[in-house]
Protein backbone atom coordinates (compact mmCIF):
# COMPACT_ATOMS: atom_id res chain seq x y z
CA UNK A 1 0.00 0.00 0.00
CA UNK A 2 1.33 3.41 -0.88
CA UNK A 3 0.70 6.18 1.57
CA UNK A 4 -0.12 9.63 0.37
CA UNK A 5 2.78 12.06 0.53
CA UNK A 6 2.69 14.48 3.44
CA UNK A 7 2.17 17.42 1.13
CA UNK A 8 -0.92 17.99 -0.97
CA UNK A 9 0.21 21.08 -2.88
CA UNK A 10 3.59 21.73 -4.36
CA UNK A 11 4.97 24.77 -6.16
CA UNK A 12 8.09 24.66 -8.28
CA UNK A 13 9.91 27.90 -9.19
CA UNK A 14 6.78 29.98 -9.39
CA UNK A 15 6.97 33.49 -10.81
CA UNK A 16 3.95 35.73 -11.23
CA UNK A 17 3.77 39.02 -13.10
CA UNK A 18 1.13 41.71 -13.40
CA UNK A 19 2.29 43.45 -16.55
CA UNK A 20 5.80 44.60 -15.66
CA UNK A 21 5.35 44.05 -11.96
CA UNK A 22 7.04 40.97 -10.55
CA UNK A 23 4.44 39.98 -7.97
CA UNK A 24 5.76 36.58 -6.81
CA UNK A 25 9.42 35.73 -7.09
CA UNK A 26 10.77 32.26 -7.60
CA UNK A 27 8.77 30.45 -4.96
CA UNK A 28 9.32 26.78 -4.15
CA UNK A 29 7.21 25.33 -1.43
CA UNK A 30 5.05 22.49 -0.25
CA UNK A 31 1.77 22.76 1.60
CA UNK A 32 1.25 20.03 4.13
CA UNK A 33 -1.82 17.87 4.07
CA UNK A 34 -4.48 18.44 6.74
CA UNK A 35 -2.52 21.26 8.32
CA UNK A 36 -3.27 24.94 8.72
CA UNK A 37 -0.77 27.18 6.96
CA UNK A 38 -1.04 30.89 7.64
CA UNK A 39 0.30 33.54 5.27
CA UNK A 40 1.22 36.83 6.77
CA UNK A 41 2.90 39.94 5.43
CA UNK A 42 2.30 43.57 4.56
CA UNK A 43 -0.38 44.65 2.08
CA UNK A 44 0.69 44.08 -1.51
CA UNK A 45 3.25 41.41 -0.64
CA UNK A 46 1.44 38.91 -2.85
CA UNK A 47 -0.44 36.84 -0.27
CA UNK A 48 -3.78 36.91 -2.07
CA UNK A 49 -2.16 36.41 -5.45
CA UNK A 50 -0.28 33.42 -4.11
CA UNK A 51 -3.42 31.82 -2.69
CA UNK A 52 -5.29 32.34 -5.97
CA UNK A 53 -2.57 30.59 -7.92
CA UNK A 54 -3.90 27.31 -6.56
CA UNK A 55 -7.54 27.69 -7.58
CA UNK A 56 -6.59 29.65 -10.68
CA UNK A 57 -8.67 32.64 -9.71
CA UNK A 58 -5.98 34.88 -11.20
CA UNK A 59 -6.84 33.59 -14.68
CA UNK A 60 -9.39 36.39 -15.05
CA UNK A 61 -6.88 39.19 -14.59
CA UNK A 62 -5.78 40.43 -17.99
CA UNK A 63 -2.23 41.51 -17.19
CA UNK A 64 -1.57 38.34 -15.21
CA UNK A 65 1.24 36.05 -16.31
CA UNK A 66 2.64 32.99 -14.55
CA UNK A 67 5.74 30.85 -14.86
CA UNK A 68 6.57 27.65 -13.02
CA UNK A 69 4.59 24.62 -12.02
CA UNK A 70 1.87 24.01 -9.47
CA UNK A 71 0.89 20.50 -8.43
CA UNK A 72 -2.06 19.23 -6.50
CA UNK A 73 -1.78 15.56 -5.54
CA UNK A 74 1.11 15.41 -8.04
CA UNK A 75 -1.05 16.66 -10.87
CA UNK A 76 -0.07 19.85 -12.67
CA UNK A 77 -3.11 22.06 -12.21
CA UNK A 78 -2.06 24.27 -15.11
CA UNK A 79 -1.89 21.24 -17.39
CA UNK A 80 -4.01 21.07 -20.51
CA UNK A 81 -6.30 18.32 -19.27
CA UNK A 82 -7.35 20.24 -16.16
CA UNK A 83 -10.89 21.61 -16.06
CA UNK A 84 -10.72 24.74 -13.98
CA UNK A 85 -14.24 24.49 -12.58
CA UNK A 86 -13.64 20.88 -11.52
CA UNK A 87 -10.45 21.97 -9.78
CA UNK A 88 -12.28 24.68 -7.86
CA UNK A 89 -15.01 22.34 -6.65
CA UNK A 90 -12.40 20.79 -4.40
CA UNK A 91 -11.11 24.09 -3.06
CA UNK A 92 -13.41 26.10 -0.83
CA UNK A 93 -12.72 29.79 -0.64
CA UNK A 94 -13.78 32.47 1.82
CA UNK A 95 -13.15 36.06 0.85
CA UNK A 96 -12.00 39.00 2.88
CA UNK A 97 -15.18 41.00 2.42
CA UNK A 98 -18.55 39.34 2.82
CA UNK A 99 -19.94 38.78 -0.67
CA UNK A 100 -23.26 36.95 -0.44
CA UNK A 101 -25.18 36.41 -3.65
CA UNK A 102 -28.31 38.57 -3.82
CA UNK A 103 -30.39 35.49 -3.06
CA UNK A 104 -31.84 33.85 0.01
CA UNK A 105 -29.60 32.46 2.73
CA UNK A 106 -30.53 28.93 1.68
CA UNK A 107 -29.79 29.56 -2.00
CA UNK A 108 -26.44 31.04 -1.05
CA UNK A 109 -25.38 28.01 0.93
CA UNK A 110 -26.49 25.37 -1.58
CA UNK A 111 -25.30 27.25 -4.69
CA UNK A 112 -22.09 25.23 -4.98
CA UNK A 113 -24.08 21.98 -4.81
CA UNK A 114 -26.76 23.13 -7.23
CA UNK A 115 -24.25 24.06 -9.92
CA UNK A 116 -22.90 20.52 -9.61
CA UNK A 117 -26.35 19.42 -10.70
CA UNK A 118 -27.59 18.18 -7.32
CA UNK A 119 -31.36 18.60 -7.12
CA UNK A 120 -32.35 16.36 -4.20
CA UNK A 121 -34.16 18.79 -1.90
CA UNK A 122 -33.68 16.69 1.23
CA UNK A 123 -29.95 16.33 0.64
CA UNK A 124 -29.56 20.05 -0.07
CA UNK A 125 -31.43 20.98 3.09
CA UNK A 126 -29.33 18.61 5.19
CA UNK A 127 -26.12 20.07 3.80
CA UNK A 128 -27.39 23.62 4.33
CA UNK A 129 -28.16 22.85 7.96
CA UNK A 130 -24.85 21.08 8.51
CA UNK A 131 -22.71 23.82 7.04
CA UNK A 132 -24.65 26.61 8.71
CA UNK A 133 -24.09 24.81 12.00
CA UNK A 134 -20.39 24.53 11.22
CA UNK A 135 -20.19 28.25 10.60
CA UNK A 136 -22.06 28.96 13.86
CA UNK A 137 -24.93 30.68 12.08
CA UNK A 138 -27.69 28.05 12.21
CA UNK A 139 -29.28 29.16 15.48
CA UNK A 140 -29.56 32.74 14.26
CA UNK A 141 -31.06 32.06 10.83
CA UNK A 142 -32.80 28.69 10.96
CA UNK A 143 -36.24 30.34 10.75
CA UNK A 144 -35.22 32.85 8.06
CA UNK A 145 -33.55 30.62 5.48
CA UNK A 146 -35.64 32.15 2.70
CA UNK A 147 -34.75 35.70 3.66
CA UNK A 148 -32.27 37.59 1.50
CA UNK A 149 -28.69 37.15 2.64
CA UNK A 150 -28.17 40.85 1.92
CA UNK A 151 -30.42 41.66 4.87
CA UNK A 152 -27.96 40.07 7.30
CA UNK A 153 -25.29 41.93 9.25
CA UNK A 154 -21.71 41.95 7.99
CA UNK A 155 -20.60 39.27 10.44
CA UNK A 156 -23.54 37.05 9.53
CA UNK A 157 -22.90 37.57 5.83
CA UNK A 158 -19.30 36.46 6.33
CA UNK A 159 -20.52 33.32 8.04
CA UNK A 160 -22.88 32.70 5.11
CA UNK A 161 -19.74 32.82 2.96
CA UNK A 162 -18.06 30.30 5.24
CA UNK A 163 -21.08 27.99 5.18
CA UNK A 164 -21.28 28.36 1.40
CA UNK A 165 -17.70 27.23 0.96
CA UNK A 166 -18.09 24.32 3.39
CA UNK A 167 -21.31 23.03 1.86
CA UNK A 168 -19.46 21.39 -1.04
CA UNK A 169 -17.13 19.68 1.46
CA UNK A 170 -13.86 20.58 -0.23
CA UNK A 171 -10.59 18.92 0.76
CA UNK A 172 -8.76 22.21 0.66
CA UNK A 173 -10.01 25.40 2.21
CA UNK A 174 -8.74 28.89 1.42
CA UNK A 175 -9.49 31.77 3.73
CA UNK A 176 -8.44 35.24 2.61
CA UNK A 177 -8.46 37.32 5.79
CA UNK A 178 -11.77 35.75 6.71
CA UNK A 179 -12.17 37.39 10.08
CA UNK A 180 -10.64 40.80 9.54
CA UNK A 181 -13.97 42.43 8.64
CA UNK A 182 -15.60 41.16 11.84
CA UNK A 183 -15.76 43.07 15.09
CA UNK A 184 -13.32 41.85 17.78
CA UNK A 185 -15.84 39.86 19.83
CA UNK A 186 -17.20 37.91 16.88
CA UNK A 187 -13.67 37.52 15.54
CA UNK A 188 -12.57 35.77 18.71
CA UNK A 189 -15.69 33.60 18.62
CA UNK A 190 -15.04 32.67 15.00
CA UNK A 191 -11.41 31.85 15.71
CA UNK A 192 -12.45 29.46 18.46
CA UNK A 193 -15.08 28.02 16.16
CA UNK A 194 -12.42 27.60 13.49
CA UNK A 195 -10.21 25.58 15.84
CA UNK A 196 -13.11 23.34 16.88
CA UNK A 197 -14.07 22.85 13.25
CA UNK A 198 -10.55 22.02 12.13
CA UNK A 199 -10.17 19.48 14.90
CA UNK A 200 -13.14 17.66 13.42
CA UNK A 201 -12.65 18.24 9.70
CA UNK A 202 -8.85 18.03 9.42
CA UNK A 203 -8.79 19.91 6.13
CA UNK A 204 -5.81 21.33 4.37
CA UNK A 205 -6.21 25.01 5.11
CA UNK A 206 -4.34 28.02 3.81
CA UNK A 207 -5.34 31.29 5.31
CA UNK A 208 -4.20 34.85 4.97
CA UNK A 209 -4.10 37.21 7.89
CA UNK A 210 -2.68 40.56 8.95
CA UNK A 211 -2.76 39.57 12.55
CA UNK A 212 0.22 37.65 13.88
CA UNK A 213 -1.64 36.67 17.05
CA UNK A 214 -4.33 35.13 14.88
CA UNK A 215 -1.72 33.21 12.90
CA UNK A 216 -0.15 31.92 16.13
CA UNK A 217 -3.50 30.88 17.46
CA UNK A 218 -4.80 29.09 14.39
CA UNK A 219 -1.90 27.88 12.31
CA UNK A 220 0.37 24.84 12.38
CA UNK A 221 2.77 26.54 10.04
CA UNK A 222 3.34 30.19 9.27
CA UNK A 223 4.66 31.67 6.05
CA UNK A 224 6.02 35.18 6.29
CA UNK A 225 5.92 37.04 2.98
CA UNK A 226 7.43 40.27 1.77
CA UNK A 227 7.64 41.78 -1.72
CA UNK A 228 6.65 38.55 -3.46
CA UNK A 229 9.12 36.39 -1.57
CA UNK A 230 8.42 33.85 1.12
CA UNK A 231 10.90 34.84 3.79
CA UNK A 232 10.26 31.84 5.99
CA UNK A 233 7.84 28.94 6.22
CA UNK A 234 8.00 27.13 9.50
CA UNK A 235 6.29 26.24 12.74
CA UNK A 236 5.34 29.20 14.93
CA UNK A 237 8.01 28.24 17.47
CA UNK A 238 10.77 28.03 14.89
CA UNK A 239 9.76 31.32 13.33
CA UNK A 240 10.07 33.01 16.69
CA UNK A 241 13.16 31.13 17.85
CA UNK A 242 15.11 30.95 14.62
CA UNK A 243 14.10 33.77 12.32
CA UNK A 244 15.61 33.06 8.92
CA UNK A 245 15.96 36.66 7.82
CA UNK A 246 16.29 40.11 9.32
CA UNK A 247 12.73 40.84 8.24
CA UNK A 248 11.29 37.85 10.07
CA UNK A 249 13.34 38.80 13.10
CA UNK A 250 11.89 42.28 13.12
CA UNK A 251 8.45 40.88 12.49
CA UNK A 252 8.56 38.53 15.46
CA UNK A 253 10.53 40.68 17.90
CA UNK A 254 7.48 41.96 19.69
CA UNK A 255 5.74 38.61 19.84
CA UNK A 256 5.40 37.38 23.44
CA UNK A 257 7.50 34.19 23.62
CA UNK A 258 5.34 32.55 26.23
CA UNK A 259 2.35 32.60 23.91
CA UNK A 260 4.19 30.80 21.13
CA UNK A 261 6.65 28.44 22.67
CA UNK A 262 5.87 25.09 24.14
CA UNK A 263 7.66 23.63 27.12
CA UNK A 264 9.55 21.25 24.81
CA UNK A 265 11.04 24.23 22.99
CA UNK A 266 12.87 25.46 26.10
CA UNK A 267 13.31 22.37 28.31
CA UNK A 268 16.62 20.73 29.21
CA UNK A 269 17.60 17.13 28.65
CA UNK A 270 16.59 14.79 31.50
CA UNK A 271 19.24 14.92 34.24
CA UNK A 272 19.73 13.41 37.63
CA UNK A 273 19.56 16.77 39.33
CA UNK A 274 17.35 17.37 42.27
CA UNK A 275 13.83 17.27 40.86
CA UNK A 276 10.54 18.45 42.28
CA UNK A 277 7.27 16.56 42.10
CA UNK A 278 5.37 18.70 39.57
CA UNK A 279 4.99 17.28 36.09
CA UNK A 280 4.03 19.24 32.97
CA UNK A 281 3.33 18.09 29.43
CA UNK A 282 5.92 18.94 26.81
CA UNK A 283 3.12 20.20 24.55
CA UNK A 284 1.91 22.85 26.97
CA UNK A 285 2.17 26.46 25.88
CA UNK A 286 4.45 28.19 28.36
CA UNK A 287 1.90 30.86 29.18
CA UNK A 288 -0.58 28.23 30.34
CA UNK A 289 1.74 26.53 32.83
CA UNK A 290 4.06 29.38 33.79
CA UNK A 291 2.24 30.21 36.98
CA UNK A 292 2.36 26.61 38.19
CA UNK A 293 6.05 26.23 37.43
CA UNK A 294 6.96 29.54 39.05
CA UNK A 295 5.63 28.35 42.42
CA UNK A 296 8.29 25.59 42.39
CA UNK A 297 11.81 25.92 43.69
CA UNK A 298 13.26 22.87 42.01
CA UNK A 299 13.24 21.81 38.38
CA UNK A 300 9.97 20.53 37.04
CA UNK A 301 9.63 17.21 35.24
CA UNK A 302 8.51 17.32 31.61
CA UNK A 303 6.59 14.35 30.29
CA UNK A 304 5.22 13.33 26.88
CA UNK A 305 1.85 11.89 25.87
CA UNK A 306 2.79 8.49 27.37
CA UNK A 307 3.86 9.90 30.74
CA UNK A 308 7.51 9.24 29.86
CA UNK A 309 9.99 11.75 31.24
CA UNK A 310 11.53 13.63 28.33
CA UNK A 311 13.18 16.58 30.07
CA UNK A 312 13.28 19.04 32.90
CA UNK A 313 12.72 22.70 33.23
CA UNK A 314 13.87 25.09 35.94
CA UNK A 315 11.60 27.98 36.99
CA UNK A 316 14.38 30.43 36.17
CA UNK A 317 14.16 29.33 32.54
CA UNK A 318 10.55 30.46 32.45
CA UNK A 319 11.51 33.86 33.82
CA UNK A 320 14.27 34.14 31.25
CA UNK A 321 11.93 33.21 28.45
CA UNK A 322 9.25 35.69 29.44
CA UNK A 323 11.40 38.65 30.40
CA UNK A 324 14.78 38.13 28.79
CA UNK A 325 13.99 37.89 25.14
CA UNK A 326 17.51 36.90 24.16
CA UNK A 327 19.46 33.75 24.75
CA UNK A 328 16.57 31.45 25.45
CA UNK A 329 18.49 28.64 23.87
CA UNK A 330 21.39 29.01 26.28
Amino acid at each position, binding site marked *: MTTKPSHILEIKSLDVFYGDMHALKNIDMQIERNKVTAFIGPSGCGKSTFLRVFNRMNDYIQSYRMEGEVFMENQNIYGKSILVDELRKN*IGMVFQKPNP*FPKSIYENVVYGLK*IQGIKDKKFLMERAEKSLKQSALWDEVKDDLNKSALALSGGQQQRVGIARSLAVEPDIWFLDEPFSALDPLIRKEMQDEFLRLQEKLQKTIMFITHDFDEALKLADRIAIMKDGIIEQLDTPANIVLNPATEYVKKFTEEVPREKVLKIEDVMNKPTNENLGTLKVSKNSIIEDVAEKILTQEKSVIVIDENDQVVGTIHPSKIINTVFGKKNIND
Partner: protein
Amino acid sequence: MTNSKKNRIKDRIFEYFGIASTFFGLVILVIFIGNILVDGLSRIDWDFMTSLPSRKAERAGIFTAWSGSLWILALTTLIAFPLGVSAGMYLEEYGKKTSLSSLLEVNISNLAGVPSIIYGLLGLEIFVRVFKMGNSILAGAFTLSLLVLPIIIVATRESIRAVPPSIRAASYGLGATKWQTIWHQVLPSSMGGILTGVILAISRAVGETAPLIVVGALAYVPFAPSSPMDEFTVMPIQIFNWVSRPQHGFTINAAAAIIILLIITFVMNGIAVYLRNKWEKKISW
Protein backbone atom coordinates in the same frame (compact mmCIF):
# COMPACT_ATOMS: atom_id res chain seq x y z
CA MET B 1 -18.73 97.42 -5.36
CA THR B 2 -16.53 94.83 -3.66
CA ASN B 3 -15.54 91.65 -5.35
CA SER B 4 -17.47 89.37 -3.03
CA LYS B 5 -20.63 91.39 -3.53
CA LYS B 6 -20.24 91.03 -7.28
CA ASN B 7 -19.80 87.32 -6.90
CA ARG B 8 -22.90 87.05 -4.79
CA ILE B 9 -24.93 88.84 -7.42
CA LYS B 10 -23.54 86.51 -10.08
CA ASP B 11 -24.54 83.63 -7.86
CA ARG B 12 -28.09 84.92 -7.65
CA ILE B 13 -28.33 85.55 -11.39
CA PHE B 14 -27.24 82.05 -12.18
CA GLU B 15 -29.73 80.63 -9.72
CA TYR B 16 -32.61 82.44 -11.44
CA PHE B 17 -31.31 81.45 -14.84
CA GLY B 18 -31.18 77.84 -13.71
CA ILE B 19 -34.76 77.95 -12.43
CA ALA B 20 -35.93 79.50 -15.67
CA SER B 21 -34.15 76.83 -17.72
CA THR B 22 -35.70 74.09 -15.64
CA PHE B 23 -39.17 75.49 -16.03
CA PHE B 24 -38.86 76.18 -19.75
CA GLY B 25 -39.34 72.58 -20.79
CA LEU B 26 -41.85 71.88 -18.08
CA VAL B 27 -44.07 74.86 -18.91
CA ILE B 28 -44.11 74.04 -22.59
CA LEU B 29 -45.05 70.43 -21.76
CA VAL B 30 -47.89 71.56 -19.49
CA ILE B 31 -49.23 73.97 -22.12
CA PHE B 32 -48.98 71.25 -24.75
CA ILE B 33 -50.74 68.64 -22.66
CA GLY B 34 -53.42 71.11 -21.58
CA ASN B 35 -54.05 72.11 -25.16
CA ILE B 36 -54.28 68.53 -26.33
CA LEU B 37 -56.58 67.55 -23.48
CA VAL B 38 -58.97 70.42 -24.22
CA ASP B 39 -59.06 69.50 -27.89
CA GLY B 40 -59.10 65.75 -27.74
CA LEU B 41 -60.36 64.42 -24.43
CA SER B 42 -64.05 64.63 -25.35
CA ARG B 43 -63.38 62.68 -28.55
CA ILE B 44 -62.05 59.61 -26.73
CA ASP B 45 -64.66 56.93 -26.24
CA TRP B 46 -65.13 53.25 -26.94
CA ASP B 47 -66.13 53.84 -30.56
CA PHE B 48 -63.01 55.90 -31.20
CA MET B 49 -60.84 53.07 -29.91
CA THR B 50 -62.60 50.35 -31.88
CA SER B 51 -63.44 52.05 -35.18
CA LEU B 52 -61.55 51.59 -38.41
CA PRO B 53 -60.30 54.64 -40.31
CA SER B 54 -62.89 56.56 -42.29
CA ARG B 55 -63.17 59.51 -44.62
CA LYS B 56 -65.58 61.12 -42.20
CA ALA B 57 -63.83 62.47 -39.12
CA GLU B 58 -66.66 61.62 -36.69
CA ARG B 59 -66.71 57.98 -37.77
CA ALA B 60 -62.94 57.46 -37.93
CA GLY B 61 -61.17 55.56 -35.11
CA ILE B 62 -57.70 54.41 -34.20
CA PHE B 63 -58.27 50.68 -34.03
CA THR B 64 -55.91 49.85 -36.89
CA ALA B 65 -53.34 52.31 -35.57
CA TRP B 66 -53.11 51.06 -32.01
CA SER B 67 -53.34 47.40 -32.95
CA GLY B 68 -50.54 48.04 -35.45
CA SER B 69 -48.54 49.76 -32.74
CA LEU B 70 -49.09 46.84 -30.36
CA TRP B 71 -47.96 44.37 -33.03
CA ILE B 72 -44.86 46.45 -33.68
CA LEU B 73 -44.18 46.76 -29.96
CA ALA B 74 -44.50 43.04 -29.32
CA LEU B 75 -42.45 41.92 -32.32
CA THR B 76 -39.74 44.54 -31.79
CA THR B 77 -39.40 43.41 -28.18
CA LEU B 78 -39.22 39.76 -29.23
CA ILE B 79 -36.48 40.51 -31.75
CA ALA B 80 -34.48 43.23 -30.01
CA PHE B 81 -34.49 41.88 -26.44
CA PRO B 82 -32.64 38.57 -27.00
CA LEU B 83 -30.36 40.06 -29.66
CA GLY B 84 -29.46 43.13 -27.63
CA VAL B 85 -28.95 41.33 -24.34
CA SER B 86 -26.86 38.59 -25.95
CA ALA B 87 -24.71 41.13 -27.77
CA GLY B 88 -24.24 43.23 -24.63
CA MET B 89 -23.39 40.12 -22.63
CA TYR B 90 -20.87 38.97 -25.22
CA LEU B 91 -19.12 42.32 -25.34
CA GLU B 92 -18.99 42.65 -21.58
CA GLU B 93 -18.21 39.09 -20.52
CA TYR B 94 -16.48 37.37 -23.37
CA GLY B 95 -15.10 39.58 -26.12
CA LYS B 96 -12.93 41.85 -24.04
CA LYS B 97 -9.54 41.33 -25.52
CA THR B 98 -9.85 40.98 -29.27
CA SER B 99 -9.52 43.81 -31.76
CA LEU B 100 -12.74 42.55 -33.30
CA SER B 101 -14.68 43.43 -30.19
CA SER B 102 -13.20 46.91 -29.97
CA LEU B 103 -14.18 47.43 -33.61
CA LEU B 104 -17.71 46.25 -32.77
CA GLU B 105 -17.80 48.57 -29.81
CA VAL B 106 -16.94 51.65 -31.84
CA ASN B 107 -19.55 50.74 -34.41
CA ILE B 108 -22.27 50.22 -31.85
CA SER B 109 -21.60 53.65 -30.39
CA ASN B 110 -21.76 55.05 -33.92
CA LEU B 111 -25.02 53.24 -34.64
CA ALA B 112 -26.65 54.92 -31.67
CA GLY B 113 -26.08 58.27 -33.35
CA VAL B 114 -27.42 57.41 -36.81
CA PRO B 115 -30.62 59.35 -37.73
CA SER B 116 -33.70 57.15 -37.68
CA ILE B 117 -34.56 57.84 -41.33
CA ILE B 118 -31.33 56.08 -42.31
CA TYR B 119 -32.51 52.99 -40.43
CA GLY B 120 -35.68 53.25 -42.47
CA LEU B 121 -33.71 53.16 -45.70
CA LEU B 122 -31.65 50.25 -44.39
CA GLY B 123 -34.83 48.39 -43.48
CA LEU B 124 -36.37 49.12 -46.87
CA GLU B 125 -33.36 47.74 -48.69
CA ILE B 126 -32.67 44.70 -46.49
CA PHE B 127 -35.95 43.54 -44.99
CA VAL B 128 -38.52 44.78 -47.50
CA ARG B 129 -36.57 44.05 -50.69
CA VAL B 130 -33.78 41.53 -50.07
CA PHE B 131 -35.69 39.36 -47.60
CA LYS B 132 -38.93 40.07 -49.46
CA MET B 133 -40.96 40.81 -46.35
CA GLY B 134 -42.88 43.52 -48.18
CA ASN B 135 -44.52 46.39 -46.32
CA SER B 136 -45.27 44.05 -43.45
CA ILE B 137 -45.28 44.43 -39.67
CA LEU B 138 -42.32 42.06 -39.58
CA ALA B 139 -40.23 44.33 -41.80
CA GLY B 140 -41.19 47.29 -39.62
CA ALA B 141 -40.35 45.41 -36.41
CA PHE B 142 -36.94 44.33 -37.73
CA THR B 143 -36.20 47.90 -38.79
CA LEU B 144 -37.14 49.29 -35.38
CA SER B 145 -35.14 46.51 -33.71
CA LEU B 146 -32.04 47.77 -35.51
CA LEU B 147 -32.85 51.22 -34.22
CA VAL B 148 -33.15 50.25 -30.56
CA LEU B 149 -30.42 47.58 -30.47
CA PRO B 150 -27.62 50.01 -29.59
CA ILE B 151 -29.65 51.38 -26.68
CA ILE B 152 -30.35 47.89 -25.34
CA ILE B 153 -26.75 46.82 -25.78
CA VAL B 154 -25.43 49.84 -23.89
CA ALA B 155 -28.02 49.39 -21.11
CA THR B 156 -27.15 45.68 -20.83
CA ARG B 157 -23.43 46.36 -20.65
CA GLU B 158 -23.83 49.01 -18.00
CA SER B 159 -26.05 46.83 -15.85
CA ILE B 160 -23.68 43.88 -16.16
CA ARG B 161 -20.73 46.08 -15.31
CA ALA B 162 -22.54 47.21 -12.15
CA VAL B 163 -22.49 43.65 -10.78
CA PRO B 164 -19.61 43.61 -8.27
CA PRO B 165 -16.60 41.45 -9.26
CA SER B 166 -16.78 39.86 -5.81
CA ILE B 167 -20.02 38.12 -6.82
CA ARG B 168 -18.35 36.60 -9.87
CA ALA B 169 -15.34 35.61 -7.77
CA ALA B 170 -17.58 33.86 -5.25
CA SER B 171 -19.36 31.96 -7.99
CA TYR B 172 -16.16 30.93 -9.79
CA GLY B 173 -14.64 30.00 -6.45
CA LEU B 174 -17.38 27.44 -5.90
CA GLY B 175 -16.58 25.79 -9.21
CA ALA B 176 -19.19 27.45 -11.39
CA THR B 177 -18.45 27.70 -15.09
CA LYS B 178 -18.56 31.02 -16.86
CA TRP B 179 -22.00 30.31 -18.23
CA GLN B 180 -23.36 29.21 -14.84
CA THR B 181 -21.96 32.37 -13.30
CA ILE B 182 -23.58 34.55 -15.94
CA TRP B 183 -26.89 32.71 -15.87
CA HIS B 184 -27.30 32.28 -12.10
CA GLN B 185 -25.60 35.42 -10.80
CA VAL B 186 -24.78 38.12 -13.32
CA LEU B 187 -28.01 38.15 -15.32
CA PRO B 188 -30.45 38.01 -12.39
CA SER B 189 -28.51 40.74 -10.65
CA SER B 190 -28.49 43.01 -13.66
CA MET B 191 -31.98 42.23 -14.97
CA GLY B 192 -33.52 45.35 -13.39
CA GLY B 193 -31.20 47.65 -15.30
CA ILE B 194 -31.52 45.61 -18.48
CA LEU B 195 -35.34 45.65 -18.39
CA THR B 196 -35.37 49.37 -17.70
CA GLY B 197 -33.18 49.96 -20.73
CA VAL B 198 -35.26 47.66 -22.90
CA ILE B 199 -38.54 49.32 -21.96
CA LEU B 200 -37.18 52.81 -22.54
CA ALA B 201 -35.81 51.69 -25.90
CA ILE B 202 -39.10 50.08 -26.92
CA SER B 203 -41.10 53.09 -25.81
CA ARG B 204 -38.90 55.15 -28.09
CA ALA B 205 -39.63 52.69 -30.89
CA VAL B 206 -43.38 53.07 -30.34
CA GLY B 207 -43.07 56.79 -31.02
CA GLU B 208 -40.91 56.43 -34.13
CA THR B 209 -42.41 57.52 -37.43
CA ALA B 210 -39.72 58.15 -40.02
CA PRO B 211 -38.28 54.63 -40.42
CA LEU B 212 -41.75 53.11 -40.67
CA ILE B 213 -42.82 55.56 -43.32
CA VAL B 214 -39.84 54.49 -45.37
CA VAL B 215 -40.57 50.77 -45.03
CA GLY B 216 -44.11 51.46 -46.23
CA ALA B 217 -46.36 51.85 -43.22
CA LEU B 218 -47.88 55.04 -44.60
CA ALA B 219 -50.35 53.03 -46.59
CA TYR B 220 -54.01 53.54 -45.79
CA VAL B 221 -54.95 50.35 -43.98
CA PRO B 222 -58.69 49.71 -43.75
CA PHE B 223 -58.39 46.65 -41.51
CA ALA B 224 -56.57 45.65 -38.36
CA PRO B 225 -53.53 43.38 -38.92
CA SER B 226 -53.94 39.76 -37.92
CA SER B 227 -50.51 38.33 -38.75
CA PRO B 228 -46.92 39.61 -38.83
CA MET B 229 -46.99 39.60 -42.62
CA ASP B 230 -49.95 42.03 -42.87
CA GLU B 231 -49.67 45.62 -43.91
CA PHE B 232 -50.05 48.04 -41.08
CA THR B 233 -50.02 51.54 -39.77
CA VAL B 234 -49.04 52.84 -36.33
CA MET B 235 -50.22 55.59 -34.01
CA PRO B 236 -47.70 58.32 -34.93
CA ILE B 237 -48.37 57.81 -38.63
CA GLN B 238 -52.13 57.95 -38.07
CA ILE B 239 -51.66 61.17 -36.12
CA PHE B 240 -49.48 62.64 -38.87
CA ASN B 241 -52.07 61.61 -41.43
CA TRP B 242 -54.94 63.31 -39.53
CA VAL B 243 -53.01 66.47 -38.69
CA SER B 244 -52.31 67.01 -42.39
CA ARG B 245 -56.03 66.98 -43.27
CA PRO B 246 -57.80 70.36 -43.60
CA GLN B 247 -61.06 69.42 -41.84
CA HIS B 248 -61.32 70.49 -38.19
CA GLY B 249 -62.78 67.13 -37.15
CA PHE B 250 -59.53 65.33 -38.01
CA THR B 251 -57.51 67.81 -35.92
CA ILE B 252 -59.61 66.79 -32.93
CA ASN B 253 -59.07 63.10 -33.83
CA ALA B 254 -55.34 63.76 -33.92
CA ALA B 255 -55.44 65.36 -30.46
CA ALA B 256 -57.35 62.36 -29.10
CA ALA B 257 -54.87 59.94 -30.67
CA ILE B 258 -51.97 61.93 -29.21
CA ILE B 259 -53.49 61.50 -25.75
CA ILE B 260 -53.64 57.73 -26.26
CA LEU B 261 -50.05 57.63 -27.53
CA LEU B 262 -48.85 59.72 -24.57
CA ILE B 263 -50.65 57.41 -22.16
CA ILE B 264 -48.94 54.38 -23.71
CA THR B 265 -45.54 56.07 -23.46
CA PHE B 266 -46.09 57.25 -19.88
CA VAL B 267 -47.28 53.83 -18.79
CA MET B 268 -44.20 52.20 -20.30
CA ASN B 269 -41.89 54.71 -18.66
CA GLY B 270 -43.76 54.17 -15.41
CA ILE B 271 -43.18 50.42 -15.64
CA ALA B 272 -39.48 51.06 -16.28
CA VAL B 273 -39.20 53.28 -13.20
CA TYR B 274 -41.14 50.76 -11.12
CA LEU B 275 -38.90 47.88 -12.20
CA ARG B 276 -35.76 49.86 -11.48
CA ASN B 277 -36.93 50.80 -8.00
CA LYS B 278 -38.06 47.27 -7.24
CA TRP B 279 -34.70 45.81 -8.26
CA GLU B 280 -32.74 48.50 -6.50
CA LYS B 281 -34.57 47.70 -3.30
CA LYS B 282 -33.96 43.99 -3.69
CA ILE B 283 -30.31 44.32 -4.60
CA SER B 284 -28.28 46.89 -2.73
CA TRP B 285 -24.63 45.95 -2.68
